[in-house]
């Protein structure tokens, strides 16, 4: 056996292992949190923004970098929207504090 391993093969190895990790991690997610799971995975898949940033990266602005910048904006909607809406949902799942505290909080909030 000679030569180096093709990068595509390395990627394939990473891919297969990551699918296994994903499979096992996701099965541990409690069904009650499946909606937040979906919104947070949405935000995570928006890490595609990295590709968009690279495409928008070259110093001179041309067709490719403008397309890239549009992709950056689209992915950014998801990054912010996904994480923030997940946080909003998860706040609702907070264990309820004793009543007195909650009232004080409500007063402070309004």
């Amino acid at each position, binding site marked *: 056996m000679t030569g180096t391993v093709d*990068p*595509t093969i390395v*990627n394939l190895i990473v*891919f297969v292992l*990551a*699918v296994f*990790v*994903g*499979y096992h991690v*996701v099965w541990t997610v*409690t*069904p*009650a*949190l*499946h*909606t*937040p*799971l*979906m*919104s*947070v*995975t*949405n935000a*995570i*898949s928006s*890490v*595609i*923004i*990295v*590709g*968009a*940033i*690279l495409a*928008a*990266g*070259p110093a001179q*602005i*041309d067709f*490719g*970098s403008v*397309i*890239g910048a*549009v992709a*950056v*904006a689209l*992915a*950014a*909607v*998801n*990054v*912010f*929207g996904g*994480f*923030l*809406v997940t946080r*909003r*949902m*998860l706040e609702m799942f*907070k*264990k309820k504090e004793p009543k007195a505290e909650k009232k004080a909080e409500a007063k402070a909030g309004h």
Partner: protein
Amino acid sequence: MTANQVALWYLVASVFFILALKGLSHPSTARRGNLFGIIGMVIAVLVTLALTKNIAMIVLAIAIGGAIGAVVAKRVEMTQMPELVAAMHSLVGMAAVLIAIAAVNNPASIGIPVPMPTGNKLELFIGSFVGAVTFSGSVIAFGKLAGLGKSFRLFSSAPVVFKGQHMLNLLLAIVMVAFGVWFFLADAPGHWFPFLVMLAIAFVLGVLIIIPIGGADMPVVISMLNSYSGWAAAGIGFSLNNPMLIIAGSLVGSSGAILSYIMCKAMNRSFINVILGGFGAAEGVAAGSAEQRSVKSGSSDDAAFIMGNAESVIIVPGYGLAVSRAQHAVKELAHALTEKGVNVRYAIHPVAGRMPGHMNVLLAEAEVPYDQVFEMEDINSEFGTADVALILGANDVVNPLALKPGSPIHGMPILDAYKAKTVIVNKRSMATGYAGLDNELFYMDKTMMVFGDAKKVVEDMVKALE
């Protein structure tokens, strides 16, 4: 920064993404999990920004997109989560397509050698067509969820089917792959034509794949598109040789696939059966011809009286409850009953609501403590000892017909509400559920129907209890 440093930072971000999903295993660790996700994303974006020269334009784009995302996240109603998620899937798909176009336009800008090796072309092909299917499929799903069917037929929540549909899809897929092969073989700039034709076909395919799927199967569709958006990200990761994108994409892809599986199982449908679509159209007609049968109906006051004297009540919320925004009223009802010493619990069917876990979020929004909320497997054995099962806007998920061999929903796991001593059902009318089937439960001797809008009925019950 050297390439090695960048790769290591990406590894750190990937680990944070895995920890983010891991955190969701329990509500108490979930918020920390979300924070891990944010940290991972910040690392990924900052490291990548350091590699580019056009920072002002990129930061501007992030600011615009981020502001829109933040406003939407703050304003969206919890009942609209399925629409929001569908819309976000479409954005991931579109971003993947745009990145692929930018890559074909100038491979060097994102680190692909010129002329583009065939391997990278294959990966770009996969990334872009999955992205395109995700985009147009999600747009259709969004339209169906948002109820835009009246203004545009493709958005109809009833399945849109025509003769030869599956053959057409297959044919289009083959033609698309043929153009993909042409794209591999062609050199720049001749590869633009096959690439764009391939993209156009993929957009059309996305529409055709989703239109035959009926409104009842939306939880599966959303999960499936969730999965696709992950695979699209992974595909782009392959073409950019970026392991972090591959890892994040595969996590999301497998997450969506598992959710699709769970939803299919909860509806006792095979995945293939859902994808081929058309469910809910034929059966709906058959149910219309069912003979009129009498049911026992009562008022909210009667129902409140029965529940007030019960020892334990199990509430079965369905989508009808969410539609009439009755979750807060239900919480008041549970509170009033608890004050009287009644043990109140909630039973959630996996497909209650319009997306996985939707009902849990709606109840959490109404500040129902999550230790009162039980999944189907955990509470089904309790119905036998419960005095009252209160069914609010749910239908198919409590239909005992599922236990009868030969019925269209035979084998579908249901909540055993029919085992409770008394069953109180609130519905707007005797209309059938998504499956289009009559529900035996409504005709049982121990069942009392309370007709009316869920919110109004529940509020009346609370008043009667006080």
